């Protein structure tokens, strides 16, 4: 972790005549714009993550119950016995506190411009997004359940943070057709030695079907890394969207839609009924399928019960001449809620068919 305190030397790099010094602008006039920027950032995070996760104050919930039983035909003299469902499993969500600190000397503060100070706030927001992406990645791509102590709640309750279905023998709900799944062998973490061509195509179709067979079918998405875009585009079953600014010819089939220009976070076409997206948070050679429009979102972001402690916020400031420091804090945890809505494939020639998580 890089540490440091901003000094006058740092100010020599970016200065324009139009920048006003904070000392002239008035530090009290910075407070509201920074608070407004943080509020907008938190609202944007909630909105853009809505496809993948919901917010919850809960730390654990039941999951995997089947209503059980059968609806049987009766006559006018019959009365069926009462029935009840099978046992339920549990899912739990971690909850942690993250901090990003910025410091400066008094001399820096006297000479700093408004822009200099606002860039610190921008840095905090960017680090918050990086941390969020990292936690999403861990929740989705780690196949091994995690035991955590719920320290921030004060009671140190032991929680088992479960992943997507990983054959841990926890109950799996049957699908609408009544098909049940073996809890000790059914896994949504698979691997293939085929990194391209028909072998990879077969494995990706199985990946998508692995999610769809649990009745997660609305808005199916296949998330891929930008590094694997060429491989996916070369698959026989892939239909590309037209690139922005290009007029499509009539020589080949194309999917209906336009691929936006942001190269590492955009839809690029369709495959086996799923829309294919490049994503910044998907590691190279990993593929993730889930139903984005299903109301049963795969993930939960656990948030603090107190509204004022949610999102990214300035938790504290320390002024101890000649040093000043500002502490940005975010309290949250990300865990899997609907274990069936999501599946991951690792494509690597040396995998031997055994899934191995990426470096997270």
């Amino acid at each position, binding site marked *: 972790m890089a540490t440091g305190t901003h000094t006058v030397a740092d100010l020599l790099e970016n200065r324009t005549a139009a920048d006003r010094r904070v000392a002239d602008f008035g530090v009290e006039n910075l407070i509201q714009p920074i608070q407004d920027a943080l509020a907008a950032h938190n609202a944007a995070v909630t909105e853009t993550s809505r496809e993948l996760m919901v917010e919850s104050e809960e730390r654990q919930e039941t999951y995997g119950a089947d209503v059980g039983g059968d609806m049987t035909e009766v006559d006018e003299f019959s009365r069926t016995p009462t029935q009840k469902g099978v046992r339920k499993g549990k899912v739990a969500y971690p909850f942690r506190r993250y901090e990003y600190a910025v410091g400066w000397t008094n001399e820096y503060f006297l000479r700093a411009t408004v822009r200099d100070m606002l860039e610190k706030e921008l840095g905090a927001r960017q680090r918050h997004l990086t941390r969020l992406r990292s936690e999403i990645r861990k929740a989705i791509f780690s196949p091994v359940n995690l035991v955590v102590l719920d320290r921030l709640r004060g009671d140190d309750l032991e929680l088992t943070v479960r992943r997507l279905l990983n054959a841990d023998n926890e109950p799996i709900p049957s699908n609408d057709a009544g098909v049940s799944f073996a809890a000790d*062998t059914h896994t949504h973490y698979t691997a293939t030695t085929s990194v391209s061509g028909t072998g990879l195509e077969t494995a990706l179709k199985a990946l998508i079907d692995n999610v769809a067979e649990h009745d997660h079918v609305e808005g199916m998405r296949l998330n891929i890394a930008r590094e694997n875009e060429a491989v996916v585009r070369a698959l026989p079953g892939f239909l590309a969207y037209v690139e922005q600014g290009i007029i499509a010819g009539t020589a080949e089939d194309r999917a209906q839609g336009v691929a936006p220009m942001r190269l590492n976070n955009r839809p690029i076409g369709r495959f086996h009924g799923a829309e294919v997206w490049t994503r910044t948070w998907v590691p190279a050679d990993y593929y993730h399928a889930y139903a984005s429009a299903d109301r049963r979102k795969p993930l939960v972001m656990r948030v603090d019960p107190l509204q004022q402690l949610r999102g990214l916020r300035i938790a504290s400031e320390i002024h101890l001449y000649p040093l000043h420091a500002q502490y940005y804090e975010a309290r949250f945890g990300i865990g899997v809620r609907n274990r069936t809505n999501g599946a991951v494939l690792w494509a690597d020639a040396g995998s031997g068919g*055994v899934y191995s998580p990426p470096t997270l």
Partner: protein
Amino acid sequence: MAETQKGGIYRVGDEFVDANGNKVKPAKEASTEPPEDPSVIPSEFPGAQVLARNGWTTWAHLEGKGREELIALRGVGDATADEIMAAYAKRSA
């Protein structure tokens, strides 16, 4: 079908573990991989992965290509290009 997949064993670092992180011994199972298309460059061919990342997935992509064209691909350096050329020549012989 989901039930034919290998279930519940994962490799974390050098160890094989189950879903709860307990060490296990990997079971030897028959491969469920489909038979390979002969026109496709197999995954064990030297440089197959980096060629695939550049969209070069079949032997037709390599036909008639020289060293300079290989080096122009993203992720292919001198050593990899030489390796690919040598392996392709051996295959063609």
